[in-house]
């Protein structure tokens, strides 16, 4: 499972997509999402958004 940035929208907080091991995204979140924060705390880094 990884997190990936969604393309930024001006004036809005960054949104992240959680990509599960099967390649599907079943959850999007802000940086306040606890599981995302826990994932970052383990030293992970979200992938950049698609161009």
């Amino acid at each position, binding site marked *: 499972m990884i997190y990936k940035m969604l393309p930024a929208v001006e004036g809005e907080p960054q949104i992240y997509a959680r990509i599960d091991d099967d390649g599907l*995204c079943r959850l*999007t*979140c802000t940086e306040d999402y606890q599981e995302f924060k826990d994932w970052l705390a383990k030293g992970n880094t979200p992938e950049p958004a698609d161009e």
Partner: protein
Amino acid sequence: MTVSINGTNGLVFNDGSSQATAATGFGFKNRIINGAMVIDQRNAGASVTPIAQQYLCDRWKFGLTAASKFTAQQNAGSVTPPAGFTNYLGVTSSSAYSVSSSDVFYLAQAIEGLNISDLAWGTANAATVTLSFWVRSSLTGTFGGSVGNNGTTNYPFSYTISSANTWEQKTITIVGPTSGTFATTSAAGILLSFSLGAGSTYSGTAGAWAISSFIVQPTGATSVVGTSGATFYITGVQLEKGSTATSFDYRPYGAELALCQRYYYKSIFAPISGYSPTTSRADGTVVFPVPMRDAPAALETTGTASDYGVYFQSGGVLCNSIPNIASPTTIHGGYVRFNCPVSFSIGQGCLMAPYTTGAYLAWSAEL
């Protein structure tokens, strides 16, 4: 009118009716939400192999340190629930797993601090509470659980299951702790846990408050995870103020659902009014049926973009990516964004909708 009082029937009125127990808190006395396991928004009765902190029936989560050791399901095994109940939460051990000192498996519910503030736990005025529940297991012996603040103050309790595969009601009275910190805000105030197996790190002494890291059971409690195929079913969970267990606090289904929706709201196949702020996306708002505990920070979806679509002036179009959460999402409503491979007219009104029957949008503000 004649009213008599006797030691057998309590208060007896002249119409023959009687009241045998004290009139303490007839309604909303249960601090546990969905104690009868009636609401299952996430899984709708389907079996799951839980991962750590995954929610099962609403408000009930599964704690674990090793994956794939259990399956869990509302009404697992399809046994007859205890009289007066129609549902229960069941877990089944998938293998015979010997716990290490640092392993732990449990079912738990975190109670919001706002709902336990009157108990005054952590003060000299700490109230006594009574936990009652119905339990059934394929195993017999001494089982365990705990009440605490999920961090520094814990009360492990034990109970005995005497007969295998038989529903038994258990009652445990707990004198409130006069020390420790129990949140009285919208954060977690009390964590109630039922152990399914734990090592020494998560075990302690039964029947006493301990200042320690999380403890889920008394030392030596039966390990459900240790027996392949072992079952553990539970329902009718009630935690109430006072030293006596009273009858289960049945609440109207709609009321119980609304209580659950403060923490998790799943909108299935429900359209949203929206508009197109750009040529390739539609934005809309979902108004939550009740204010949530906290502003949700995530939006759950099916994982398939084509489960969602937008209907606008020129017809309907499927999304080309999963709907995502957007800002501002608050305790009152969620802002959601659908992306589509078409060219909307900016400012155009539209209807954003799950396109397949089971498609949903779900928001969590769980503890």
